[in-house]
């Protein structure tokens, strides 16, 4: 009897599973729309109403309803459309360069600027030349005459 009840419950769960929408979605369409490109218009999905973009949005919505994670959805789209479907390059392999080069450039620029400012601030004004005693004496004389 118990086995029969368990079997019915398992069958009910198996049948209910695919029909029920994901109770707690693991990602959102609005998030992924900013991460995925429209292949025909070369903007992110949230900026496009092109038919190809609409199709991909529908595909993403379907996967979200099936409780897929953002990573799983992105992987599926990459397998279908290639890496170009991602708005940003992945954080691995050669693509890491795309992330680190700009950061490196900004840091190198900041370092150069800091060195430049430091060197400039240490530059002293040119010292006065040797004292012309003859001229000095004449000026003193002229000043004394004005008194």
């Amino acid at each position, binding site marked *: 009897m118990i086995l029969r009840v368990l079997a019915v419950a398992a069958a009910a769960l198996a049948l209910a599973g695919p029909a029920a929408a994901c109770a707690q979605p693991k990602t959102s369409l609005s998030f992924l729309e900013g991460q995925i490109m429209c*292949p*025909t218009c070369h903007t992110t999905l949230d900026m496009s109403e092109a*038919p*190809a973009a*609409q*199709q*991909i949005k529908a*595909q993403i919505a379907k996967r979200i309803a099936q409780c897929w994670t953002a990573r799983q959805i992105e992987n599926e789209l990459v397998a*279908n*459309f*290639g890496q*170009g479907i991602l708005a940003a390059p992945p954080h691995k392999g050669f693509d890491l360069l795309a992330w680190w080069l700009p950061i490196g450039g900004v840091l190198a620029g900041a370092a150069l600027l800091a060195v430049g400012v430091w060197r400039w601030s240490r530059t002293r004004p040119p010292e006065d030349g040797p004292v012309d005693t003859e001229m000095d004496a004449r000026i003193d004389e002229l000043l004394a005459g004005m008194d």
Partner: protein
Amino acid sequence: MTRSLKLGGQIVALVAVAGLLALLVWRLTHQSHPPKIGGPAPNFSLKRIDGSGKLDLASLRGKPVVINFWASWCVPCKGEAKLLEQAWNQYRSQGVVFVGVDYHDVASDARTFLSHHGVTYPTVQDGSGMVGDRYGLTGVPETYFVDRGGRLVGSHIIGTITNQVSAFHDGIKAALDQ
């Protein structure tokens, strides 16, 4: 020390500028140009969407080929699907091969499209659009004709064939005649 630092900086800057220039030249010289009628049809080897394995255009050398770029999200493609299938059934006995190239499309939707419209000729997936770009595609649908020697012949059809039926049949005849 300061002088060597300055010299090093100048060399790095020069190398960076030279690198950027080289990149620009490479980009300009490697831009894809649309293929010319009479010239070789750009080859491709793409995954079949209607079955397993790949289809290589070069393997069809010796046969006239009709290449139709389409997508399931493309409304005019639905309109011409039936005509293409009819033409395939009409010309296949003469050795003509039709190849559908599914451009920038979700594979599952493409399969549904093929099944819904009863398309039976081989169809391959160009998800990244790389092959379409090499053909200089301006959109879908577009149709090209390749002769037995692998050269593009006829005039390639931009847009649906339903409005250009005679040009479509002329293209197939041109591929058969060469």
